[in-house]
């Protein structure tokens, strides 16, 4: 038993983090809220060049032939910066499904984010080529998540392959939730150290400390389930991971907003970029109820 990442895996994660800290800042995410695509111009190409998008593809198809264990850390980083890109949908879901790394994939069980800029769209109904569908835009609370209803005639897809792809996306989304929780927690800790009321930093108050301690505990016990699921790719493990990661992210979002007070309630402040992503992800790729019921079917 060695339940840890290798130095190489950590180094790759750090390299991606470094890229995203430059190329996916809050300012970039804000820009995606208002631009035409909801994505950050040029970022997808940089992620592709680093090998992130094709990590799970065979080398012969331009991939790195790595595993979900390698990818899960990277996806956590994309959550940490709220990257407005279909990276889970492509790198975790689509690349192994299509066995190629050169097509951008959009997927969801119902409303599909970034469907308009993807090459291939996969829903529960089947597979669509982008130029053969009608897309109806719907507004998401997360302005960067461009959501679409997908209409058209799908091509059938192999049910087992789709199920496995869905489970990888569940794990990937769970990893993003961990990254989002970490980001919101870090922001809030920093804010409560700086913000002074009654002559002292608000972070010195026990009521504030306990909110953030609870968030930190939730993250501590969610992450290992996510990493375990990445290693086993067992559907039940994926469901446990998603449920606990959603819980950690939602709890952290609540605590972060409360500890920020009114400033966190504005859109001028960055917290909402991450909070709204966590709200959206918690109900996509299966919500807590669905995932607990999948676990229940296995254990009860």
């Amino acid at each position, binding site marked *: *038993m*060695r*339940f*840890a*990442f*290798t130095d190489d895996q950590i180094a790759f994660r750090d390299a991606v983090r470094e890229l995203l800290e430059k190329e996916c800042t809050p300012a970039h995410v804000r820009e995606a809220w208002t631009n035409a695509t909801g994505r950050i111009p040029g970022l997808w190409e940089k992620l592709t060049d680093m090998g992130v998008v094709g990590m799970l593809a065979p080398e012969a198809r331009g991939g790195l032939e790595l595993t979900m*264990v390698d990818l899960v850390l990277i996806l956590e980083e994309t959550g940490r910066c709220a990257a407005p890109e279909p990276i889970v949908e492509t790198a975790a879901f689509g690349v192994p499904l299509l066995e190629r790394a050169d097509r951008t994939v959009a997927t969801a069980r119902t409303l599909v984010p970034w469907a308009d800029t993807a090459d291939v769209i996969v829903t529960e109904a089947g597979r669509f080529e982008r130029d053969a569908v009608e897309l109806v835009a719907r507004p998401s609370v997360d302005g960067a998540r461009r959501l679409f209803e997908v209409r058209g005639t799908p091509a059938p897809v192999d049910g087992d392959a789709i199920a496995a792809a869905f489970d990888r996306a569940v794990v990937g989304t769970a990893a993003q939730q961990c990254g989002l929780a970490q980001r919101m*927690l870090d922001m809030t*800790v920093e804010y*409560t*150290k700086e913000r002074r009321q009654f002559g*002292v*930093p608000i*972070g*010195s108050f*026990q009521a*504030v*400390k*306990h909110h*953030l*301690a*609870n968030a*930190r*505990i939730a993250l*501590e*016990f*969610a*992450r*290992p*389930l996510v*990493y*375990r699921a990445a*290693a*086993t790719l067992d559907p039940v493990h994926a469901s*446990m991971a998603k*449920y*606990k990661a959603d819980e950690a992210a939602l709890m952290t979002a609540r605590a972060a907003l409360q500890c920020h007070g009114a400033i966190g309630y504005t859109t001028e402040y960055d917290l909402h970029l991450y909070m709204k992503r966590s709200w959206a992800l918690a109900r996509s790729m299966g919500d807590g*109820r669905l995932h*607990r*019921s999948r*676990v*229940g079917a296995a*254990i*009860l």
Partner: protein
Amino acid sequence: MDLSFSPEENTFRAECRAWLEVNVPRPALPSGDTRAGFTAHLEWERALFEARLAVVSWPQEFGGRDASLWEWLIFEEEYYRAGAPQRVTQNGIFLLAPTIFEFGTPEQQARVLPKMASGEQTWCQGWSEPNAGSDLAAIQSRAARDDAVGGWRLSGQKTWTTRGAFCTHLFGLFRSDPDAERHHGLTYFLVDLASAGVTVRGVERLDGDEGFAEVFLDDVFVADADVLGEPNQGWAVAMATTGSERGLTLRSPGRFLATAQRLIDLYHSRGDDPQLRDRVVAAYIDAEAYRWQTFWTVTRAVEGVRAGAESSMVKVFWSELDVRLHELALDLLGPHAELLDGDTGAWMKGYEFALAGPIYAGTNEIQRNVIAERVLGMPRR
């Protein structure tokens, strides 16, 4: 990342499982927090010791089998899976022993550890005092130097001492420098409770058992050989024990996995109430989360990373999980929840025991302060 156990570890698991299947007492022993139950538990501890399963992670010379941390976790999983008795020796073997391994002299290790492993000597923890609970550094019990006889004379009162009425020995902190304040000037002592000047009074706990004691010390002589670590350095020595108490050694995942499994059995036996199904699943997932967080931590420990304030997160999680598991069992039992007899009476008793978890070993409010200040870096004041 390798999530499999080795063939040797699987063999060890099979050995533990086979031995426990044959030897775990049926029906279950009476509560170890009563005098009669304590005696029955010591017989069980003796049987474990003779099978070299009492302290698997200790060196062979002290009664263990040099098991790795992984093997220790495997033993614990099998132990609780088998429904084996609570460990009345736990405060010695899990709280004091790690401190003796770290700070004890070779003479102390040879004298104390084998008898602790066999259950011949049983240890209780003498930390809390009437005016020092969460604020441990407020302790007032004194240790006065007696150079004439080469030792110390202890006076004062310890309280909430778990199984203090039945144990033979106490480990505790005493104020040895009367001019020092707070966590300075404390010394860690090993005290024979049969010594002249010791009076022990049992106190009935919430569950009706005499599981607590007050320990009064009136000029009790303790030799220099029974000082653990350096005089006046007791705080640092004691803090090594708090890490064990909060962290995984006291409450390994096996216990909660077993409780979650029993909860599932209870759920089925009560007719699969659909309104409680979701909570049963959530509780099971939490026990799994604890298991995998432990595997994560143990991997780091095996690679030499020592857990610090992170152990406070572990303590909050398992103690609140334990309460949730038992609350859910009582909800499944409905009007039968209050019953103390029959097949299900143990759940109420277990609930009462679980309610102590968020209080002992530093209340969860204190743990959350520690997490905020030492894990997250928030300001102390």
